[in-house]
């Protein structure tokens, strides 16, 4: 590993993107992720790249679509309301199979809501906020170091599968500073993008980037291809962390909440309660198999989110009734407190572990 720096999460994303070979950024300002733009505006012109402030989030995602269509590594970033505006574009990018990295530093909603951290865009990102049957890879880092590493990874995944890889953080993750240790060289994967629209130079067939197929049989085939790709990704690309594998109770949490959960685990240990953490790192594909690894010993699961309970549904789907699932959530920018989580753990302990 190389240089160590104290860095804001948003800046780490921007720096990581540049290191990953992303020299094109199109975005529109919105709190709490503006530092990504500021960083890019400063750095990209110095490395021969392009920073462009679009007229809107809608324009930004379409600039990304255009840039990505030429095989260029490209990124945009925004926060919740802005990401909502990108939904049509995201669906097009999915249908046309263009690689792109999209960052959502989630703030609290709905509507204009607030600018404090939230995880309430899980459904939108993981189920499909746009129209049609499509998916995007959703990565949920929980530290500034991971923001850096997963951003680099996102570009590889996007290129590998020709689709959107989304970094989903929250306002705190974007704003906070931690130490990042940079690699001396990034593990950039290179793909031969023969599909890219870069001008055929009279030396090959025309390339066309499109998502329209008026013939239903053709469109169904396109959809089946997409579904097959998604199946492969689900098989190969699930990422997660299991902490304290032999625990009786598992907290399921991602992002910054997972870190708070870790401190609860220590508190619980002091009280003789054996709590573990199951932290999905890919939210889509959701790591169902992680649950299989702990289910034999685990008595119950507690999902903790900064939402009304969105990932909760995927946890239930993964468990399919095999073990009880509880939920603790905060909304509106409130962050779950260790004491409150601990209280839930104690209740679950009394119900499912103590007299077992």
């Amino acid at each position, binding site marked *: 590993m190389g240089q160590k720096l104290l860095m804001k999460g948003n800046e780490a994303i921007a720096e990581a993107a540049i290191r990953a070979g992303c020299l*094109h950024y*199109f975005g529109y300002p919105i709190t709490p992720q503006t530092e990504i733009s500021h960083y890019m505006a400063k750095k990209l012109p110095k490395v021969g790249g*392009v920073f*462009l402030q*679009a*007229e*809107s989030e*809608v*324009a*930004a995602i*379409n*600039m*990304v*679509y*255009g*840039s*990505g*269509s*030429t095989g*260029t590594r*490209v990124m945009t970033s925004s926060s919740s309301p802005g990401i909502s505006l990108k939904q*049509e*574009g995201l669906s*097009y990018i999915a249908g*046309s199979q263009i690689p792109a990295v999209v960052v959502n530093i989630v703030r609290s909603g709905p509507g204009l809501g607030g600018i404090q951290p939230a995880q309430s865009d899980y459904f939108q990102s993981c189920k499909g906020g746009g129209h049609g049957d499509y998916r995007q890879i959703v990565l949920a880092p929980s530290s500034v170091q991971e923001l850096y590493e997963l951003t680099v990874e996102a570009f590889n995944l996007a290129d590998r599968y020709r689709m959107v890889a989304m970094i989903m953080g929250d306002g705190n993750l974007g704003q906070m500073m931690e130490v990042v240790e940079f690699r001396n060289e990034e593990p950039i994967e290179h793909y031969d993008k023969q599909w890219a*629209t*870069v*001008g*055929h*130079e*009279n*030396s090959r067939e*025309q*390339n*066309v*980037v*499109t*998502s*329209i197929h008026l013939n239903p049989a053709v469109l169904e085939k396109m959809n089946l291809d997409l579904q097959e790709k998604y199946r492969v990704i689900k098989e190969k690309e699930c990422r997660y962390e299991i902490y304290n594998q032999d625990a009786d109770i598992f907290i399921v949490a991602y992002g910054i909440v997972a870190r708070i959960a870790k401190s609860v685990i220590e508190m619980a240990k002091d009280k003789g309660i054996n709590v573990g953490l199951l932290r999905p790192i890919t939210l889509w594909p959701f790591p169902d198999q992680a649950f299989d690894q702990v289910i034999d010993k685990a008595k119950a699961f507690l999902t903790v989110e900064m939402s009304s309970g969105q990932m909760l549904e995927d946890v239930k789907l993964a468990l399919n009734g095999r073990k009880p699932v509880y939920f603790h959530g905060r909304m509106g920018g409130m962050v779950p407190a260790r004491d409150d989580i601990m209280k839930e753990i104690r209740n679950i302990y009394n119900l499912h572990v103590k007299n077992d």
Partner: protein
Amino acid sequence: MAIVFQKPKALKDTPMHYCPGCTHGIAHRLVAEALDELDIEGKTIGIASVGCSYNSYDYFGCDMIQAPHGRAPAVATGVKRSKPDNVVFTYQGDGDLAAIGTAEIVHAAARGEKITVIFINNTIYGMTSGQMAPTTLLNQYSTTTPYGRIADQHGFPINVCEMLATLEGPAYIERVSLHDVKHIKKAKQAVKKAFKVQIANKGFSLVELLSTCPTNWGLSPVESLKRVEDDMIPHYPLGVFKGKDLEV
């Protein structure tokens, strides 16, 4: 005997799906002729929009991208900023460019984005069966102005060239018409100039082509051309709105 007129090379053999007499076909040919004559098909990337020409990539031979409704200028911006040495054009209808895509065209123009915009004004939404467009003339009937366009209810038609000409970004803006041979020849020069402006790196160029939609106007193709001349040109005067003296 030599061939004095034939389908340009940059237009593929695929028969076009446009309605009989629809001047979209002429506009396509003019673009293709420009690509041929400037010998740039190989480095051109076209952006198809949403409208009757949604699949213009089936006709143009260059690399192409199909853009979401109204967003072609943003897509083109993404392409051009990534590949500044390529030639990039959009092909957009009046619903696409002047309604849902207003912000995108205004800002691409204001940025002086080095792209060429081919703007087909047929005063109607052709593809979706004849709804009012921002360019629909007053009193014109459409499926959403069944009693005619009334300013008080539906607002006034928008003159795109005049509006964009107030911006500093555009290097060249011209309005032409496809209603007769003479004007088609003029239109051809305008389209070609628009591409030359881009190649010379002068900035944003846009050509508005007054076009027909016999199907949704409920007129024959011949009557349609007459309507362009009689009704449209008086409201959409032809001419150069920006870059009159620009030599390329």
